[in-house]
């Protein structure tokens, strides 16, 4: 948001540059990024492959086209939000408010459409804008008010849920689900192109865009630089605050988009939409190799991370896993994935 307070002197700048890792994570070349991410993603992809193999042995229904698309559709809203979470985490931030922003985006869109009679596309745009604005607030709290991201977004997590209730409150004063009957928005959530569900297409397109953006644009590389070494990035002349703010805005917008998609799928904007989803979203990113201390991560890895979570959930039903083990298994998968990642780090 604000430019660096004073332009760094030459010795300062040299010292800062010396602090940056020699190659790789900060300000890497596009090819460098590709190589590192390829290695990082290979581990997650292998884990996913093993999981799929076990499941296809366990259930003849797993490797059917229908089930694969079921799994992909099931992970699509988490996957879309996890793209934003990855970008925030790479820049050294954290966004706990994503589930609430999802609900705000959904409820604002549905309300404007159903109760205010706004054109569907316009209502959806306002819903997305609400998400972007929410992200901006998160960004300003972190960069201007200097509140650490965990606390700032913990606060906005509650504020957002309250806003969702407020926007959804009907004449009775009780938070209600808001119905949504537009075919266009319905298509975003429940439509198919051939056999492929629309939310899956949206997720995959966004993953490609985000991956190219992070690897090939100046801003994308600045995000890695800021997360890798904040001081060095600042001394290099990167507008750290602006970069951080940008990441929260992206996360807000993507969360609201996930909310709109979910509204389309269910023809309803539920006030409890996305409650507690932040943990799944962050877990997807972390399983995919994104570091919680910034500077490392890729959206492709996150996609695989989200896929692992979705496949595990799919397994609960396909294999009829007893209910007591279900939540435990999710936790163990996270621990295993992150544990393996740590080990890989230690070895490299």
């Amino acid at each position, binding site marked *: 948001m604000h430019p660096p307070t004073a332009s760094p002197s030459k010795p300062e700048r040299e010292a800062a540059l010396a602090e940056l890792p020699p190659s790789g994570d900060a300000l890497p070349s596009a090819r460098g990024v590709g190589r590192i991410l390829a290695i990082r993603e290979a581990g997650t992809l292998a884990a996913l492959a093993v999981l799929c193999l076990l499941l296809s042995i366990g*259930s003849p*229904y797993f490797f*059917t086209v*229908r*089930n694969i698309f*079921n799994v992909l*559709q*099931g992970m699509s*809203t988490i996957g879309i939000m996890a793209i934003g979470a990855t970008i925030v985490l790479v820049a050294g931030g954290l966004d706990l408010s994503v589930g609430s922003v999802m609900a705000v985006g959904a409820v604002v869109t549905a309300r404007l459409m159903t109760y205010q009679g706004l054109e569907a596309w316009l209502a959806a745009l306002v819903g997305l804008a609400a998400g972007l604005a929410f992200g901006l607030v998160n960004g300003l709290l972190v960069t201007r008010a200097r509140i650490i991201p965990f606390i700032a977004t913990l606060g906005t997590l509650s504020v957002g*849920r309250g806003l969702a*209730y407020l926007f959804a*409150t*009907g*004449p*009775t*004063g*009780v*938070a*209600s*689900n808001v*119905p949504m009957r537009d075919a266009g928005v319905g298509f975003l959530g*429940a439509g198919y192109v051939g056999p492929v569900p629309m939310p899956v297409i949206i997720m995959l397109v966004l993953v490609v865009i985000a991956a190219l953006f992070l690897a090939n644009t100046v801003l994308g590389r600045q995000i890695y630089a800021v997360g890798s070494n904040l001081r060095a990035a600042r001394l290099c002349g990167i507008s750290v605050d602006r970069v951080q703010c940008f990441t929260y805005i992206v996360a807000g917008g993507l969360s609201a988009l996930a909310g709109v998609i*979910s509204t389309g*799928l*269910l*023809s*309803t904007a*539920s*006030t*409890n*939409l996305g*409650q*507690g989803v932040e943990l799944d979203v962050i877990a997807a990113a972390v399983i995919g190799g994104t570091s919680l201390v910034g500077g490392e991560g890729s959206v492709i890895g996150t996609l695989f991370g989200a896929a692992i979570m979705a496949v595990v*959930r*799919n397994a*609960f*039903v*396909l294999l*009829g*896993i*007893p*209910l*007591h083990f*279900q*939540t435990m298994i999710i936790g163990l998968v996270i621990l295993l994935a992150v544990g393996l990642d740590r080990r890989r780090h230690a070895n490299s």
Partner: protein
Amino acid sequence: MIAHLRTIVLSLVATSFVMACRNGPDAKASNSARPPNGPAFASAGVVPDEGTVQPVAQRPKKALRIAVLGLESSPFWIPVKSGAQRAARELAARGVTVDWIVPGEVHTADVFGRAIDAAVAKQYDAIATIAGDAGVAAFIDRAVNAGIPVATYNSETDTPNDRLFFVGADSYAQGKAAGTLMCKLVGPTGKVGIITGFFAVEAHQLRVKGFEDALHAGCPQAAVVGRVENQDKAEIAYQEAKDFMTAHADLAGIIAIAGSPFGAARAVEEAGKAGKVHLVTFDAVDETMDYVDKGVIDATIGQDPDAQGHDPAVRLYNYLAGGQVPPYGRLYTRADVITKANAAQYRLPRQ
């Protein structure tokens, strides 16, 4: 900054001192008037005047104030609130104020315990509260010891306490009603998937147990093919219903135990399996009723939420003004089976 903080702290200390002085004598005065005990805690039954109980003719010596502590975080609460408001209108003629108070968004003891304490401090004459978990028992006992009768409604802990009575669903009986119905729908060898709300919520698990007991009693060959939780979310129910149908091509039924069952209905409708995969759900929120009307949900089990909002306030008044004690500790509300045929009478007025 520090000077500001000091001012705030000092004013807080001063305020609490003044409050303590003001509340002191009242608290002492009310200690002497502990209300007598009501029916046995675990005695239970259905009363004929559920939802229609009338205020007694006797008038109290002073104008009474009754607090009804509730929630507004989901559409389930719309009829509960309107029930409480109906009680408020009926009792207004007798000079009674009924206040609908929403202390938070979840029904846990930390939220409702504090709200009970606050209602005692505000010198209400009676309190109706949700008593979601065991922690709330101590708060209830404290209020009763301060001379204020307490009724619980909607959900209550098994931990015995001094509440006068409870108005709400018999979760096990609701589950049994669903299980008996499912047996009829899926036939003797049907495969059924269970989507519960939360594994950790006792009422949800009681419904599951009632469901399975009744299903197996009526259809011993019927198979439960899986149990999953949807955390009261439509999206998760949608996904789980799809997974059930994928894993079991011959699936005959899905029971959605708790919140947002319409996600499962969406999945059944999308798969074109309405009428083939029989769906039984709980409660009558708008989204659910839409699918009942479409014939995607075969039946949804009610719990008379209007009576849950209405009856506690009226019965508390009858206790205070006329000394009337309800016949049971647990006044179970009807587990209505709502189908396409009788849906209209359970629909909420459109907002």
